[in-house]
Every structure is written in structure tokens, then in C-alpha cells.
């Protein structure tokens, strides 16, 4: 039987955190709630208190000060969808948002809520990890920062303390040439990723890869990076990012993946696809960077 719960609506981060500590582990921070409602209906969770954080003002924004993108934790996915696409990373994020769930869910789902749901198939995870993003969180012990990469510790579980709220997502946007891309395998036009890959590359002034991050989703218990793929890419000239080389990078990425078989896809299919996706992500990035340098 589904749990009955009380509803609370704090109007500040401080009061929300305090409330969470008081009400304890049977309480849940609730933003858009699009994942939590389903978990509550299926009795995966049995909260006794719902702490609706969406009344906290000032946590929905997308700001770009030139070297840092700052996105408020309560920014909705539809707001992300409408972000100004001038910045290459924001463009990728906006495109990723369009792929997520349905237009109705995007209206109320928040970035913080989506990240805290910690799904290895979640589209934002690999995208943000590739962008070297980090989170600002506030909890009982005060405020701290952590890379998105360490947020998910296993499917459905984050490394956050139960009192911590994600208030901001930060993405460094250095002025050098950079591009990112995200690709996934899906079936119908609204779907969860069966397997996904994201990449981001920054070039030095000689058009050589200064840093490359390749992140992969739905091929491990968390969203992981491929050290092997990244090692191959770092130090390579932009002009070499094509053809057989990219295929090798894709193959290398697959060796870092440990997919499982579930109701959506088999491990073999996921292994085979991650190669293709990583390669295609890099082709996208190469196209974008070549377009820029012309």
C-alpha cells in the first residue's frame, strides 16, 4: 500500500535543509517529482513527508559570465531546452534536454531532481561529466562542491548526505576552442537511452587536443569515463580526428564498459553500440571544431 505523507513547502535553502534534518530519513526533497511520484506509486519509496523545494526562489537560472556556465539546480528541463545556443556546451545541453522524457515532464522536471535520481541511463550525466561540470550543494554541514562524476555511486543512489540540496551546476567554459556532443540509442521518439555516450574536447592554440573527456551511460552501474579513449585522444591533432582513428577510440571506449542485460537491451548490444556512439560523438565534435576553425 502506498504511504500517506504530509506536505511541506519551505521557502529557503536553509529552512529546507533544517526541515530535512528534523523530519529525518522518512522525508524526501521533492522538486518536479516526476521520478519520485512513480517510485512512491510503485512503493519503491514510502515517504512520510514530502518537502517541496520548488517554492525556494532564485534557483532557476542559466547564467554565462564568459568563463563559467552556472545553472540553478531548480532550472526546469524545458528552460534548459530554451537556453541560448550560442555557447557550444549550452547548445549540447539544450539538444540533450529535447531528448529527455516528454514535453510535459520537462515542464516541471528539474536538473537537480534529474541528477539526484541517479540513473545510469540519464542523459544529463554523461553530458555534464564530459563538460567537467561540478555541483554546488548545501546541507547540514554547510556548502561544498563536488564533480558530477562522483555524484552517482550506484543506480538510484547519490553520494550526497540526505540533508544536501543541489543548488547549482557549474560548467567551466574556457575561451579556447571547444565542442561537445551527446548521442544515444533509442527506439521511438520518446525513450530512455539504451546506451549513451558524451564527449567534450578542448583544443590548444595549435589545434591539438588539450583535454578530452568521454563519458558513457547505461554500460556500467554508474556513468563512467573511458580512460583509454581519453588517452588516445589527448595530444592528437584535430586534423587526425576522423576515419579509422576514431573507430579505434570507439573500440577502446568499449573495453572500459561493463554493460548488463536488462529488459531494454542485452549486454552484447550495448557493447557493440558504445563503440559506434563514441565514434559518432567524436565525429560530431570534429565537425563542430572544423567548422569553427574555418
Amino acid at each position, binding site marked *: 500500500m502506498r504511504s500517506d505523507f504530509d506536505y511541506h513547502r519551505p521557502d529557503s535553502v536553509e529552512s529546507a535543509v533544517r526541515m530535512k534534518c528534523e523530519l529525518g530519513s522518512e522525508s524526501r526533497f521533492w522538486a518536479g*517529482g516526476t521520478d519520485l511520484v512513480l517510485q512512491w506509486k510503485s512503493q519503491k519509496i514510502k515517504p512520510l513527508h514530502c518537502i517541496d523545494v520548488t517554492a525556494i526562489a532564485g534557483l532557476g537560472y542559466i547564467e554565462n559570465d564568459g568563463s563559467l556556465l552556472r545553472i540553478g539546480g531548480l532550472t526546469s528541463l524545458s528552460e534548459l531546452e530554451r537556453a541560448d545556443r550560442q555557447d557550444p556546451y549550452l547548445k549540447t545541453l539544450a539538444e540533450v534536454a529535447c531528448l529527455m522524457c*516528454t*514535453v*510535459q515532464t520537462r515542464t516541471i522536471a528539474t536538473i537537480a531532481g534529474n541528477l539526484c535520481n541517479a540513473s545510469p541511463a540519464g542523459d544529463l550525466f554523461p553530458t555534464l561529466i564530459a563538460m567537467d561540470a561540478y555541483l554546488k550543494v548545501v546541507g547540514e554541514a554547510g556548502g561544498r562542491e563536488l564533480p558530477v562524476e562522483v555524484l552517482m555511486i550506484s543506480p538510484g543512489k547519490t553520494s550526497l548526505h540526505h540533508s544536501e540540496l543541489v543548488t547549482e551546476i557549474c560548467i567551466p567554459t574556457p575561451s579556447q576552442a571547444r565542442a561537445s556532443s551527446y548521442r544515444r540509442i533509442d527506439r521511438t521518439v520518446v525513450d530512455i537511452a539504451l546506451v549513451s555516450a558524451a564527449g567534450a574536447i578542448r583544443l590548444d592554440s595549435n589545434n591539438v587536443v588539450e583535454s578530452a573527456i568521454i563519458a558513457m551511460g547505461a554500460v556500467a552501474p554508474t556513468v563512467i569515463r573511458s580512460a583509454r579513449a581519453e588517452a588516445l585522444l589527448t595530444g592528437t591533432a584535430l586534423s587526425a580526428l576522423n576515419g579509422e582513428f576514431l573507430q579505434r577510440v570507439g573500440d577502446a571506449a568499449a573495453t572500459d564498459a561493463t554493460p548488463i542485460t536488462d529488459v531494454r537491451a542485452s549486454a552484447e548490444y550495448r557493447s557493440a553500440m558504445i563503440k559506434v556512439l563514441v565514434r559518432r560523438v567524436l565525429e560530431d565534435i570534429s565537425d563542430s571544431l572544423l567548422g569553427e576553425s574555418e
Partner: protein
Amino acid sequence: MTKLTVNNKKYEVSGSSARTLASVLRNDLGLTGTKVSCAEGECGSCTVLLDGQPVTSCLVLVDQAEGRKIETIESLGRPDQLHPIQQAFIDEQGFQCGACTPGFIIAAKAFLAENPNPTEDEASIAMSGNICRCGAHPYIVRAVLNAAEKMRGL
């Protein structure tokens, strides 16, 4: 006690907070035009507008809707005085069984408010947040384009 403003009318609803807006609209307020099918935010048949934006009300807690402007299919028109979107759906027969229709029409209303002159592709993608199991897909898209034309002419 939760105060809701639905279709410009004020309601006070008592009862547990552990209820969705969809179930309160249907069971407490008798507004059964909003349909509940999948109850998991996939099919869109429970779509309503919250401050003009489309949401699947099966995922919204009733208390979260307090203080917001809620619009359901009942706000749009009556059989003797239909909204242009409703008339467009009839003209193109963008429905068969009708169970998904209120959800599509509300989603279309929000879409057309933002994009009054959509292409066929844009309309088709925009309507993909809703499912029509009967398969009226192309006629739904034509209905949205027809509605856009009607509303531009107003």
C-alpha cells in the same frame, strides 16, 4: 485544506496530501475530461496547463498545484461553442476513441501559444509527448496545423 484555482474557479479540497492533481481533478472536483491512462507520465492523456505550461497531472502532487493557474479541457469550449483547436480536431478527425483527445488538445494549446506558425515537422515533434493508441497520428498533426491556421486568422 488545499486551495486550487481551476478554470478560473476557486476550490478548497480536503484530504490527504498523498494524491495527484489528476485524481483530485477527477474524483474530488468531478472534472472527468482529464483522462488517466498510464498514470506514469508517458501517454499525456492527463495533460493540463499549469500557469499556461503543459504538465502530466498524474505526476503533480495536489499541493504542488496550489497557487498555480490550472486549466483543464473543460476550460476550452462547450459542445455548442467550441474552441478553434477543438473544431480543428473535428475538421481533420484527429481522434478515434477519444481517450487521448483532451490531453492532445491541451498540449496543442500550449504549443500553439508558443509557436503559432509551426511546420508539419515541428507540430509532429511537439505532439510526441502524447500517445494516441488508436493511431490517428497524421490526422492529429493536421488538426494542429489546421488549428494554427484558424487561430492566426482570428
